[in-house]
């Protein structure tokens, strides 16, 4: 599903330059649930943003579902993001003046789907994350866990090939974190490929594979025995 070869990325600030990713190689097959771990500042988000086409690598190869991702212009990047990818952020990033339902139907609007179908589909995914009754509430009326569920529903709504989650439990308490992870595990069980960035070991243990990042290189990449989140709740 994802193939990455010798990926480099530096940030330039004035005369300083910070080499964040120093040759990343790794592959992800369909249906995997991978966590990317590392201390703060190790380049986890940078990697995920490049995978999500929110940012571009300086050099290296990136193939997503057989499509080489390079020389992206804004238009193509927007199309790929919409078709291939679903994002889940630490701070949810919901549009605050739109209801849960409207937030979930947003990616469908940019897919060009008609209103009626949009609403039906969005409602379906809200049900899936257990928030059907909250569909007309604004984000400000929801708890953190509920907001993240709305964000997950939104990421699922466009039926992406890969879900990318950057510290999805970073802003949640332990119990809520496990509930969210349970949801993510369930989605993975249905066959969706998911990458989760985290720096929490217990969260990482709930995935099937842990990639450890340090100083811009992968120092460890190993499959783990998945801990079901439900057993902790």
């Amino acid at each position: 599903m994802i193939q990455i070869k010798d990926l480099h990325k530096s940030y330039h600030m004035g005369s300083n330059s910070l080499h964040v990713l120093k040759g990343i190689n790794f592959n992800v097959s369909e249906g995997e649930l991978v966590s990317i771990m590392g201390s703060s500042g190790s380049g986890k988000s940078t990697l995920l943003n490049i995978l999500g086409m929110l940012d571009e690598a300086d050099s290296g190869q990136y193939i997503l579902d057989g499509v080489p991702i390079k020389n992206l212009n804004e238009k193509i990047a927007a199309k790929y993001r919409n078709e291939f990818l679903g994002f889940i952020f630490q701070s949810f990033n919901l549009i605050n003046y739109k209801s849960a339902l409207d937030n979930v139907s947003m990616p469908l609007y940019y897919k060009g789907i008609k209103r009626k179908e949009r609403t039906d589909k969005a409602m379906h995914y809200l049900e899936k994350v257990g928030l059907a009754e909250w569909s007309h509430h604004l984000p400000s009326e929801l708890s953190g866990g509920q907001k993240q569920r709305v964000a997950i529903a939104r990421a699922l709504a466009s039926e992406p090939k890969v879900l990318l989650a950057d510290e999805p439990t970073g802003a949640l308490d332990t119990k809520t974190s496990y509930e969210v992870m349970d949801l993510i595990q369930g989605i993975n069980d249905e066959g969706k490929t998911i990458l989760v960035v985290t720096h929490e070991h217990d969260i990482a243990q709930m995935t099937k594979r842990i990639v450890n990042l340090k100083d811009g290189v992968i120092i460890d990449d190993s499959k783990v025995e998945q801990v079901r989140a439900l057993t902790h709740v």
Partner: protein
Amino acid sequence: MFDLERWQEIFETLRKNKLRTFLTGLSVASGIFILVILLGFSKGIENGVKSQFEQDATNRISVWTGVTTKGYKGLNPGRYVQLKNSSFESVERKYDDYFEYRSKDYMIWGGTVTYKNESGNYRIRGTLPDNQFIENADIGYGRFVSQLDLADKKKVAVIGNKMKKDLFKEEDPIDKNIQIFGVNFKVVGVFYDPGGDREESQVYIPVTTAQQVFNAGDNIRNMSFTVNMADNFDEAVAQSTAIAQGIETQIKELHTVAPDDQSAVRVNNTLEEAQKIYSLIATIQAVFWFVGIGTIIAGIVGVGNIMLIIVKERTKEIGIRKALGALPMSIVGMILQEAVFVTIFAGLFGLIFGLGLLELVGPQIDSDFIKYPQVDFNIALTTVFILVIAGAFAGFIPAYRAAKIKPIVALRDE
């Protein structure tokens, strides 16, 4: 632009951001409102000034004489230049084609006029029938001096409304006899003059009668003409100035006056005065346009500023939308379409409100210098559209820049 889904999205955004929509709308609406009121009052002042100076026919040439100040062809200075019937006739003959109305007057500056026990001192003017139009005198009752009166040297009088009120009170003056210097005259008419009491404190009699009664022979005191107006104002001024100069030269030759003697023969051309008034009006208009354009520019800057703030406030939302697959142009389109919609709506609201207020308050204003403030609807509508288009341009730059921001930058937590 005509994508229904897009409009639904925009209406929803506007509805759910009521305060922002309201504030944007308010600033646009008040800008247009102020502009409409400004233009309305400038028109009102123009109307007021015009009507103030319209009391005398504006294309009038009058000829007065005085005492010579320079010796000429053996004649000594200090000689009074006496206009005669023949002077009038020679001018009339030369310029007849250009004249609309013509009059020669024999005038007594002050004379006692009596009716029964009432009497007063009034100006007495022997005149020709045309003078009614030259002086803009309005006949209230009866008639003005006629050709027949003139031919028969009838002792008839047309009195001013002020005289009528002084001498006759409530009584009907028509066909009553008054005494001018003890001579009986029959009142045949009463006139009103927009010039007011001063102009209405005089009595018109036929010039032939005046010359006879006051033993003036064929002397006249002054003459006045109105010149047919050319279509173009500047042309009219040029023509009437040329005629005035021609008449001055002619009279000076006729009465052996030095060509450079300023006080012996004076030809007054009111069209030149009118030009000053027209240019005053033009200045007033220019000032109001200047202020109006300033208001529009301020409005454009205001709309641009609002757009800048809106875009700034929505940076994160734009990042989210882009992460979800929005194209940059669809972001620009969304912001602009919203802005244009709000500006048009608010602009028309301000326009209608302003026009309504002028319509309501306009007739209540009772000032000599402001009359009937009003705005040309098309001009007002045009300004609304200028504001909308300019506002859209002003908004395009921040919208475009926002759409270019990388989603990660827009989404960065701070």
